Every structure is written in structure tokens, then in C-alpha cells.
């Protein structure tokens, strides 16, 4: 019991879920293959690489960036990205003077189609409770020290909108391709708990 919302010790939940699934299947309420398909989708198909493609395109295509900031749901659909918890996407953009951070204090809402399922820390009580009250202190624990004059905007996803952060394009990336840029974009930067480091010299090209 760490206050972290996650235990590594196995619990009775495994047996309870197994029994519940068997019961629901016997009653014909859930189709085991449909369950397999959902699990497979979130284990292999949906994840932060989707969001990284969106960010890289926004960095390199000013018209796309504009469409993304105006209507993120429609913009990411251009890249074939859509799905549950992405029906009402909102993209918020970091600048040298504004830093954005996303949270869901009431549960753990998260933009699944662009970022995949949230990490345990995003669902943790520490993150949910502190993001709106002490964002600077929280970011410091992520190793991100923001200058005092940078404005922090915290987005609490309490309704149907799901937020993603467009991080700042790092220095030293002039001339890189969209694909190369997408490689640099981390999940944490799209939640707003990290910046993107400039690429290591000579690593890409």
C-alpha cells in the first residue's frame, strides 16, 4: 500500500476476474474473441507513437498545426487516428512562455487514441491530487524545473474533452524529417511532465 495505486504483489483480483469472465461468457454476455481483440488493440496498436506522429506533423506542417489547434479530433483523423476516449480531442501547445500539463483529478481520463493507456503514475493518487495544486513542485519531481516566469496551465479533464500537449520542438532539429522528429517525441512530453531534449549529436543523420 504505497499511495501509488499500484501493487506488484498478486492479489485475489486475478481469480475474481477469471471467474467473472467465465460467468459472463457462459451467459453469452461477452464474446471472448471481442475481449482478445480489445486487449490486442491496446497492447500492440494504440500508443504514444500515434501522438508522436501528430506532434511531428504539427512541427513541420503549419497548416496542419493550425487545424490541430482548432479541432484536434478532425486533424488526427487525417492521420487515421481515432477511437474511444478520442472523440473530443483538444491539443494545447507549449511555448517558451507557457507550459501545459494534463490531469484528470476525478478518475484518470486520458486521450487513448493518441497516447495509449495511461501509465500508473498518471493514475496515481499523488499525481491526481497534486497536479492542480502544486504543478511546479510536481514537475520538479519529474526532473523538470520551469523558470518562475513561465506560465503553467493545468487542464483537468472533467468532461468529455481529452487533452494532449504539443511540446516545443527542441533545438538542433532543423532539417530533420517528420519521421525522424516523431522518434524524438516522448509520451511524457505530450502529458506535459517533460520537455523534449535536443537530439544527441550525430545520432540521427
Amino acid at each position, binding site marked *: 500500500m504505497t499511495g501509488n495505486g499500484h*501493487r506488484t504483489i498478486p492479489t485475489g483480483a486475478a481469480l475474481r476476474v477469471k471467474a467473472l469472465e467465465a*460467468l459472463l461468457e457462459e*451467459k453469452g454476455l461477452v464474446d471472448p474473441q471481442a475481449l482478445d481483440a480489445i486487449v490486442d488493440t491496446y497492447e500492440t496498436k494504440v500508443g504514444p507513437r500515434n501522438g508522436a506522429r501528430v506532434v511531428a506533423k504539427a512541427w513541420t506542417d503549419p497548416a496542419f498545426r493550425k487545424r490541430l489547434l482548432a479541432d484536434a479530433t478532425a486533424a488526427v483523423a487525417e492521420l487515421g487516428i481515432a477511437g474511444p476516449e478520442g472523440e473530443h480531442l483538444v491539443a494545447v501547445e507549449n511555448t517558451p512562455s507557457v507550459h501545459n500539463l494534463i490531469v484528470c483529478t*476525478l478518475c484518470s481520463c486520458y486521450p487513448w487514441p493518441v497516447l495509449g493507456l495511461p501509465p*500508473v503514475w498518471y493514475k496515481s493518487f499523488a499525481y491526481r*491530487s497534486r497536479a492542480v495544486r502544486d504543478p511546479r513542485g510536481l514537475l520538479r519531481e519529474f526532473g523538470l524545473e520551469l523558470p518562475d516566469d513561465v506560465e*503553467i496551465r*493545468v487542464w483537468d479533464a472533467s468532461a468529455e*474533452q481529452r487533452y494532449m500537449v504539443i511540446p516545443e520542438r527542441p533545438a538542433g532539429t532543423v532539417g530533420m524529417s517528420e519521421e525522424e522528429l516523431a522518434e524524438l517525441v516522448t509520451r511524457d512530453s505530450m502529458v506535459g511532465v517533460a520537455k523534449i531534449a535536443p537530439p544527441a549529436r550525430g545520432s540521427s543523420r
Partner: protein
Amino acid sequence: MNGIHDMGGMDGFGPLVREKDEPAFHANWEGRMFAIANLLIGQGYFNVDEFRHAIERIPAPRYLDSTYYERWLDAAQTLLAEKGVVTREEMEQRGAAPHPPSQPAAALDKTAAKSGKDAARVRAKFRPGDRVVARNLHPFGHTRLARYARAHRGIIRHDHGVYVLPDTNAHGGPPRRQHVYSVEFKATELWDTGAPQNERVYIDLWEDYLAPDPKTPARRAGRKAQRGRKRR
């Protein structure tokens, strides 16, 4: 309800703990639970607001002592039993006894129920720039109006369009459709006046959660007055 789930602004949960190279699911059962809940919602056995409220109804000590998907399991079992889809006894016999919730589901707030007559209202009451106050509502049922916002003043920044109000939708009430707004609150308003001046929290709030800020002359009134003057 003023449950433990409504933890924005609380202290006492200790430092953040992160994990390297985290998988989508930490165990097979987590993936199955995720899929079962999504399928049951998708097939209409219960809706997402009912599901969230069932998670909120997990007794507070158990809520804090559970992992994320353990809470999903408790909530799904609670709803399956309450809706008679699978009986408590059936689940017990299979070794998956549902854990009793802290309160029954049928807690449709009087205020929310009464206002069902407004179901068709879709005209926006507020516009970007309007000053508002988050109402001091404390329904015993489900709400998405976080405690830390209540009774605090903000500014409408964006109108997201029309959505169904969770407060009734979680309780089998009439589907109250209304505007949802992105409301900007200064940290100095939500917390201490000593909070940093350049920190803001944006909360998405249904129209029913908001009232015009009585402290500042409503822009709306100003606009109407102006229009009136033009007509003269």
C-alpha cells in the same frame, strides 16, 4: 458525491513513483478487466457515468487500497448485481463475491431530478469572456464538479458544445443536454492568494455547474444593454 475520488488539491499521497518501460497491462487479468468493462459499456449494460459512480461508491479505505483495475472490477461487479444482469449469488458461487458499495446507486439528487424539464435546453447561457462562479453543489449522487472548484470564480474560455449531464445520466435520469465550457481559474483563486500568479487551472464544466459571477457585472447584461441602446 464528495468521495475520496475527488482528490484534486489534496495532500498526503506522498511522492510520485514512476516505473520504467511500463507495459499496457501489468498482468493478464488487467487486460481482461479492461476489455470486459469496455465491452459491457459498449453493449449498453451500463453507461460510463454509472460506471464512474460505481467506482466512486467503493468505500474510501478500499478505494485507496486498490489498484486501478481492482476498482474497475469492484465497479463492474456492483453494477452487474444492481442491474440484475448477474446476481450477487452467482458471482459468489464462482468465488468472485462483489464488494458492497458505500452507498446504493439510487441516489439521484433531488435538484438534478427536478431540473429534468430543461432536457431540451441547448442554447448557451455563457459566452467566452463571461465571468462565472462554480456553484457550491454537494449532490449525494454522481457529479463531475470537483470540490476544489466549488464556490470559486473563473472565466469562460471556450464553449465545447452540447453534452449530456453526468449527474442525471449516472442515475437513470432524463438525458439533460447542455453546454460544457472550459473555465479558467487562477491558482490564487482556487488556493491561497499566495499561490503563483502565473498558474491557471482549466476545468471543463457543464452549464448546470455554473452561475454568473455576482461580483462582477455580467458581460451578457452589458451586451444586452448595448444592443438595446443601438435599437433605440
